[in-house]
Structure formats: structure tokens, C-alpha cells
């Protein structure tokens, strides 16, 4: 498909008008055919509008049956599949229990409510101190204060126990995710066939919404923190794998030659040459894995991860905004601390260690020594002074009631205004659009997508853009898929309407841009759960609330890509524009925006991906789309239903992604940027 522009022009140059003219005509014709079909075909061919129920393929049932077989009967000779899953859980349970005991529950004797604590967990002062020492070692005093402040916040606002449970899950899942991702990455780098197998799996895993992972994990590993750790691992490993492959590929070929010339064996080549040479990029991956783990651990509260995610979830179910918001703030504090610490770690560990000549164990490792001392002293003192051990309840602040009151106040004073906004949007935009999409013939939509795929990327893309919608229709999900498209489409559109102008305004003003950048960076480190709380508080459950949360989550990439695209425009072109006497407005519209268009399209693509992934989470506030389908499957542990719905969401994501990417590279070619 990699045709270069020149021969393409030559082959059909003579009579045909230039491509920029030909294109709209074909599109308009296809659009007209589609509209005619939509308006007049219904009486003649109803099956094209509503997929016949009798022909629905019961894929969900089959998958569920297969899973059941897997659990009940499948066996590998010596041991059954259930033995295998039990074994995995048991293995992961060891580090998790250790981390959780150390940080939160203490070491217990016995189980359940009759358990007796034999050794208490680490004192909260010790944990805060350790975090500060870590911050100091990695990034100096300011990082120490920031990290310590975030953890102190957890203690002061009474979120300590939950936060430590969440932290324990991350401490187990993130390192394992890094290790597995690295190993997969190395395997893919070393053996081509591994890469061929892994690449499509990675692509798919990136688009399947997180909830969909939870269902089979819940089914296979049961409800509880270990299952949550497994789900987190499955979620966080693919990005690390991807980063590892890219990082290893980016190692200069000379370094590989060097490894061979000094006579490295394969193993030496991997561990002594490649991995160290790639470690800067690998460290970036580590940061990402930690942040993804945090996001997932929060979501995995639905299958028993406990911790802060559970608090938010429980608060949502009770509609207790105060409690939910507090837990939400705690998540934000934890996220900021983990993000800054892991970023500093990445920087510190990828820069070569300075030679340390001082002798003596303590002198060489002052931070380690201080940490050990701190733990010893606080543990001993903790027995004598309880305040050192657990942050005294009397000093805890609870903003829960405060926030509940704020919400109540807002609702009393602005209820009408908020309702009015909500209803206007619902009546004038959301509902009509939903009806419109629901009305469309699935066959016509599929055909039109196929046409778009063909125009933008050739028959291969067309095949994809026909088959995936067909999958949705054939498995009987068309209606729910259209609701998904409607919510996602509107949210992405609004996010773009907000994000693109902000991107344009901030791109050319350095000072504003650096502020905006910090804001969107922070927004992106927040787990998606956090976005739900404020929206629910103001607008209660429903499509509009979901939309607000999705917009808040998805606006960051729209801003980022727009601004980056504009900032990337060659300054010489701008100068040339000025020299020709363009006004600022002309420079913006004729030069900047035009050249940044491919980038903006990619940003739109990301916005849609973000919106889709958030949409599934908004199932919690009662939408009726595929996300809800996954959520219901989750509560019923119905693997087939969850997976099919998850795959359908992935199908939507893939179609949108491929079409927009093809469109972007099409535009780029037309602008001569490629």
C-alpha cells in the first residue's frame, strides 16, 4: 500500500481532474446514495435497518460455555486449568499479602474477622519518612517535601488505610508489569516470530476497554485483591512491552556491532549491551506502567481490589459525594506523588551513577542507613506513643461533610440553572443525535464506512472497516454500539471544540503554554475514576453526566496535539508569510492551522480513544451503551457477554483510529509534508 505520490499521479494523470477536485465528488455521491438508502429503503428492506434477531450469532454464549469448560474440565494432563489459575493466584498472593501487611493490615494470625494482629503494620510516620527519604535521594529537598506532603495529606484526611492498600497492589503489580513487559519486549526484539504474534495482540489490548479485562479475570481468578493485581498486570504489561520493543530498536546499530565485535554471547548481548544502552527509554516505560497500574488498581476495586477505588465506588453507589470526593482527592495525591517520584527515579537511574569514593557502609548509603534507622526507631516508639503509629483520629480533618454541604448548597441555589443547562443539552443535542444514529440502517453505515476506508487507505482498510461493523451487527450489538458512538461522538466533539481553541491560543504564547502543559500533564496522571465524582455531584446520573466526565477526561489530548502541531510548524514558513504581508489571522488560518492539520487530526483520534475508554467507566452513572453491557457482565461474571461487548468497543475504536490515521496521512501527503 506504500505507494509514493509520483507514480500514482502519472498513471491516471491525463484526463482526470486533479485529485483535490475528484475527492469531494466521490464523497458527495456516496453520501447521497447513503441518504437515499436511509430515507427510502426501509419499507423494502427492513433487515438492513434492524439486524434480524434470528440471525444473531450467539458468540457470547459460546465464549461463556468455553470458559465454563475451561474451568470445569480443561486439564493439561498432570494438572487441570483450575489448578493452574489457583497456582497463579497463590504465587501472586505471597508478595501482595506481604506488602499489604506491611503497609496496612499488619501481620495477622487466623483469618476473617477473627484474625488477630500479631505484628502491626509500619507506622504511618515511618512510611511518610521513607517516602521523603526516597524523594530526597531521587530529586532533592523539593521532591521530598512534595512526596511527603502528598502522603501526609492521606493521613490527615483519614484515607491512610485505604491508600496503603492501593499502594500495596501497585507495589506488587507495577514491578511485575515492568519485568514481564521487558521480557516480552526482549523476546520480540530477538525473535521475529514472537513479534509477529505479539504485535496484533498489543494493538487489540490497547483498544479493548479496561472493564472488559476484568470480566474474564473475575471469572477465572475470583473476587479479591489477587485477581485485581492480575487484572492490573494484564493491563499494564502491553504498554511496557511496546516501549521495550521501541527502546531496543532505537539502540544504534553500532552498539550492536560493538557487542558482536567484543564477542558477546546472546545473553551478554541482551543484558550487558542492549538493555543498559536502552535504559533511558525503558525508564520512561516504568513511569507509564506505574501510572497505568494506579489507574487500573482503582478500577479493579470492582473485582475486589479494595482501597481508594473501593471507597469511590461505594460512595458513588450511596451517592455520598463528600466521601467520594475525599477519596478522589486522596487518589489525586497518591497519583501526583507516584508520578513525580517515578519520573525522578527514571531520570536518576538512567543517568550514570557518579563515582562514589567515600568508604564506610553508612557514608556510602546515607539514605538507606537513614531509612533503616527511621523504621527501627518509629517501630519501637510506635509501641509507646500511639500517635507515631497511627495518625490520631482527633487530628484528622474530614472535608466530607464540608463537600456534601457544598454540593447541597449548589443544588439548592443553582438547581434550576443546572437543570436548565442539562435539559437544554439533552433535548436539543443529545437526544436528537441519539435518535438520528439509532435510525440509521446498519447495512448502509457499514457500506459507507467501507467506502471511506477504500478512499482513504485502499481495499485492505476497506475490508477492516466493513468487517468490524459487521461483527458488531452480527453479534446483535448494533443498537448499543450506536449509543456508544453517540455518546463518544458528542463528547469527543465537545472536547475538541474546547480543546482545539485552547491549544491554538496557548501554542504561540510560551508562558501560557508552559502553564497549560503542567495542567494537562497533571490531568493525564489522574486515574479516570476521579473524573466521575464532580460530574455526578452536579448533574446526578445519566447521559449528560457521563458526557461531562468524558469531556473532562478527553480534552487533554485535543489541547496537547493541537498545540504541538502548531508549534511544530516551520518558523521559516511563518516568516515567509509575514514577508508576504499576511495578517496574523491569515498566518493562523492559512499557514499554522493548515500545516498543523494532520497533527490536529491525530489529536482528535486520541480524543476519541480517550473518550471511548472513559465511556466504559461512565457505565457506573447509568448509561445504556456497550459500557453498561460490560458492567452488567461484570456484576454477573458473564464472561462471554463482557468480552463480546468489550470487543465491540474495540471494534469501534479500531475503525475510528484507522480511518482517522489514514485521513491524517492522506492530508499530510496532500500538503507535501510526507
Amino acid at each position, binding site marked *: 500500500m506504500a505507494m509514493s505520490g509520483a507514480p500514482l499521479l502519472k498513471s491516471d494523470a491525463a484526463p482526470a481532474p486533479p485529485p483535490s477536485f475528484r475527492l469531494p465528488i466521490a464523497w458527495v455521491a456516496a453520501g447521497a446514495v447513503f441518504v437515499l438508502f436511509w430515507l427510502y429503503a426501509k419499507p423494502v428492506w427492513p433487515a438492513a435497518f434492524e439486524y434480524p434477531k434470528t440471525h444473531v450469532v450467539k458468540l457470547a454464549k459460546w465464549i461463556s460455555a468455553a470458559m465454563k469448560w475451561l474451568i470445569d474440565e480443561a486439564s493439561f494432563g498432570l494438572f487441570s486449568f483450575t489448578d493452574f489459575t489457583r497456582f497463579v493466584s497463590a504465587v501472586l498472593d505471597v508478595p501482595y499479602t506481604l506488602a499489604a501487611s506491611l503497609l496496612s493490615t499488619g501481620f495477622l494470625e487466623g483469618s476473617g474477622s477473627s484474625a488477630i494482629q500479631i505484628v502491626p503494620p509500619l507506622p504511618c510516620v515511618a512510611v511518610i519518612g521513607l517516602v521523603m527519604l526516597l524523594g530526597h535521594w531521587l530529586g532533592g529537598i523539593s521532591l521530598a517535601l512534595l512526596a511527603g506532603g502528598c502522603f501526609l495529606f492521606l493521613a490527615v484526611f483519614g484515607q491512610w488505610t485505604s491508600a496503603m492498600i492501593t499502594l500495596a497492589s501497585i507495589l506488587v503489580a507495577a514491578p511485575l508489569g515492568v519485568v514481564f513487559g521487558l521480557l516480552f519486549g526482549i523476546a520480540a526484539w530477538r525473535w521475529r516470530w514472537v513479534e509477529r504474534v505479539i504485535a496484533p495482540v498489543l494493538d487489540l489490548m490497547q483498544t479493548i476497554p479496561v472493564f472488559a479485562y476484568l470480566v474474564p479475570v473475575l471469572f477465572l481468578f475470583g473476587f479479591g485483591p489477587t485477581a485485581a493485581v492480575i487484572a492490573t498486570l494484564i493491563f499494564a504489561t502491553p504498554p511496557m512491552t511496546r516501549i521495550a520493543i521501541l527502546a531496543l530498536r532505537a539502540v*544504534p546499530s*553500532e*552498539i550492536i*556491532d*560493538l557487542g*558482536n*565485535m*567484543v*564477542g*558477546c*554471547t546472546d545473553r*551478554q548481548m541482551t543484558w*550487558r*549491551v542492549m538493555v*543498559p*544502552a536502552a*535504559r533511558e527509554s525503558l525508564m520512561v516505560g516504568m513511569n507509564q506502567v506505574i501510572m497505568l497500574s494506579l489507574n487500573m488498581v482503582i478500577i479493579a476495586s470492582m473485582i475486589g481490589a479494595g482501597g481508594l477505588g473501593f471507597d469511590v465506588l461505594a460512595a458513588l453507589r450511596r451517592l455520598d459525594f463528600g466521601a467520594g470526593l475525599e477519596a478522589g482527592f486522596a487518589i489525586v495525591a497518591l497519583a501526583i506523588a507516584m508520578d513525580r517520584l517515578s519520573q525522578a527515579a527514571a531520570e536518576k537511574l538512567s543517568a*550514570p551513577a557518579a*563515582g562514589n569514593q567515600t568508604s564506610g557502609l553508612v557514608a556510602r548509603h546515607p539514605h538507606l542507613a537513614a531509612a533503616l534507622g527511621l523504621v527501627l526507631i518509629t517501630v519501637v516508639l510506635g509501641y509507646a506513643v500511639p500517635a507515631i503509629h497511627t495518625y490520631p483520629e482527633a487530628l484528622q480533618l474530614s472535608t466530607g461533610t464540608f463537600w456534601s454541604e457544598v454540593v447541597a448548597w449548589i443544588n439548592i441555589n443553582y438547581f434550576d440553572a443546572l437543570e436548565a443547562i442539562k435539559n437544554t443539552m439533552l433535548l436539543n443535542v443529545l437526544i436528537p443525535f441519539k435518535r438520528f444514529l439509532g435510525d440509521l440502517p446498519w447495512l448502509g453505515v457499514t457500506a459507507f464506512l467501507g467506502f471511506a476506508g477504500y478512499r482513504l487507505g485502499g481495499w485492505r482498510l476497506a475490508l477492516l472497516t466493513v468487517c468490524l461493523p459487521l461483527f458488531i451487527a452480527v453479534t446483535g450489538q448494533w443498537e448499543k454500539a450506536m449509543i456508544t458512538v453517540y455518546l463518544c461522538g458528542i463528547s469527543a466533539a465537545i472536547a475538541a471544540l474546547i480543546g482545539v481553541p485552547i491549544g491554538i491560543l496557548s501554542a504561540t504564547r510560551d508562558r501560557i503554554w508552559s502553564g497549560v502543559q503542567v495542567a494537562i500533564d497533571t490531568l493525564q496522571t489522574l486515574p479516570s475514576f476521579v473524573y466521575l465524582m464532580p460530574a455526578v455531584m452536579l448533574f446526578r446520573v445519566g447521559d449528560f453526566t457521563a458526557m461531562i466526565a468524558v469531556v473532562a477526561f478527553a480534552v487533554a489530548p485535543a489541547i496537547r496535539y493541537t498545540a504541538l502541531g502548531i508549534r511544530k510548524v516551520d518558523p521559516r514558513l511563518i516568516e515567509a508569510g509575514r514577508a508576504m504581508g499576511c495578517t496574523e489571522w491569515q498566518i493562523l488560518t492559512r499557514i499554522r492551522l493548515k500545516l498543523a492539520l494532520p497533527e490536529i487530526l491525530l489529536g482528535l483520534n486520541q480524543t476519541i480513544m480517550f473518550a471511548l475508554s472513559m465511556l466504559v467507566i461512565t457505565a457506573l452513572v447509568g448509561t445504556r451503551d456497550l459500557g453498561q453491557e460490560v458492567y452488567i457482565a461484570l456484576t454477573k461474571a458473564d464472561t462471554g457477554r463482557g468480552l463480546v461487548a468489550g470487543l465491540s468497543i474495540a471494534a469501534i475504536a479500531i475503525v475510528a483510529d484507522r480511518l482517522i490515521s489514514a485521513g491524517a496521512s492522506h492530508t499530510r501527503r496532500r500538503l507535501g509534508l510526507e
Partner: protein
Amino acid sequence: MTTPEARLVCRNVWKLFGADAAAFLAQHNGRPEAAAIARAGLVGAVRRVDLDVHEGEIFVIMGLSGSGKSTLVRLMSRLIEPSGGDVLFKGENLLKLSQSRMIEIRRHQMGMVFQHFALLPHLTVLDNVAFPLDIQGMNRPAREARAREMIDLVGLNGKESAFPRQLSGGQQQRVGIARSLAVEPEIWFLDEPFSALDPLIRREMQDEFMRLQTKLHKTIVFITHDFDEAIRLADRIAIMKDGEIVQAGTPEEIVLTPATSYVAEFTKNVARAKVIRTRSLMVPADSGSVEGPVVSARSTIADAAPLFLDGVAHLGVTDDAGELIGRLDRETVVALMLQG
């Protein structure tokens, strides 16, 4: 002159990039024409190369960008598998060796210096230089002692605990040189070692390189795209174009009798006196028959000329052992210098 022993021999070596290159080569009896290669959509990076590198000489491969130099030197060390042909190292066909034997040879008998230095960013200068020894499994004190010796040799004392990114380009390449010499290789490959350096530093590094070679007498394959560098350093030069060697010979042969117009284009602006060595212009003479100052048979005329300023009519010419082997007359030198 006795013919020196050939250390490294390439026989009809080919490297075609693209699908099924070996099959294509076999179809064309191992000698396809350039047009056929292009038609098949392959890249003929190295074509029908025959050459031998002698013990203790500096063999320079010169060619413009994309002429296949890097590919050729990687074929010689079997970093790349040739599409066809043989590479003999000390009589052993490298292409037939097992992987473990190849590792053995690379560990103990080959060294390579890279254009972009290829230093490991996470290791100090000392650890970088000791790295090949570490890979061989040498213990720490032994390898560090050896590495320090090498660092001394290239004049980097005091920088042992610096990291590559803290060094200048010239210093980094000194580390690369020290590292490649740490294993005492029998053949030393240098792929454009000085191309990434500023002209002044490059000049300094060339001198340094010559100083090392007079000490070490390695067998060297040196890659460059700079003709001046080639004639400065080479005992023999092979000139490459589009993957083929168009001419191979001593700098004098190449300058005096360029084989093609392509070669002549390079030699056009080269001052003869800087290329021609005293050995080629001297009249044979018996030891003791010439009085006065002497020059080495390896020096160029340009180097010898200043000695005539004292008014002597001829110089004695000595071989590497310091024995007088000939006489260089003032008139011959003046005649050559006047030609330019």
C-alpha cells in the same frame, strides 16, 4: 622485497541487500551485472571484492558515502553474512566457522573502532575500556590494570571515572581506540574513526594513530571517505565505487597511475611530493657510501625536502632497520617539487 604474509583475504565477496540475494547470485553464476542487480530490485552494496591485507600494514579502504565501505568492513569481520564469496582470516574461512569459534576469534583477535564511537553510556571510561575483557570473563583487578594501561597509551589518564557524555568527541574516540586495543587484537578494523571529528582534532588524532602504529605494528583495515587521510596513513589503498574496488595499490601507484577517470578525479589536486616516498626516487647505494643526513625510506619527499636546505647535494636513505639502502639526489627532488 619479500611478499609479506596475507592476514585477511577476501575472495569474490558479494553483498546484495534485498530478498533472496543468495539465490539471485547463484542464478547469475555468482557474477551478476550491475544492471541485472538493479532490475531485480536489489542493492549491490559490495560487489566482486578481491583483496588481501598483509601482516603489519595499514590497508585503507577509501570511497564516497554509500560506496559500501562499512558493509565491506562488516563482511570482513562477519558482522554481516556475505551473499557470496569467501573471507579468510589467517587461512581460516570465517564463513565456515561455528558461532562459538567466531566469538572466540572476535574476543581475542579482532578489534574495531566505530565512526560514532559506540561507547556504552552507562559505563565509565575505565569500564568501557575494560568491557571486552569483562565479556571474556577476566577478573576485575586484571582487566582494570590492562584498561589503565590502554588509557595511558591513548593519553587519557585522569579521565578513568568520567562518563562518555562528559568527554569531547576526540576524547571519546580515544576511549574507543583504547577499548579496541585492550584485547591485543591481531587485526584492527577502524570504520571512519575520525570522520565525526573537527578537522583540527582529526589531524591530531591521525598523528596519534600513526604514533600508536609505529609502536604496535598492528594489521589494520582503515575506512575513510577522505582521500587526504587515506594517502597520509595508508601503506596501501583500495578505492571503492558503487560497491566495487576500482583500484588498489600504494598511494604512489594510485596518484601516479590512476586506473580510471574516477580515481584521477581524486588524485588531481594531490601534491606529488606528499605521496611519493623516498624509496621510489632513490638510487640504490651500498651501506657507507653516502655521507651526511639520512631519511627513512618510508618518508615522503615533502618530509625529506627541508633537509636539502642546508645545502647538501644528496641524502642517505635508510630502511626500517636503519641500514643505508640508497641515495636521494637534490635534482630529482627539485624536479618533482616543480611539477607540483
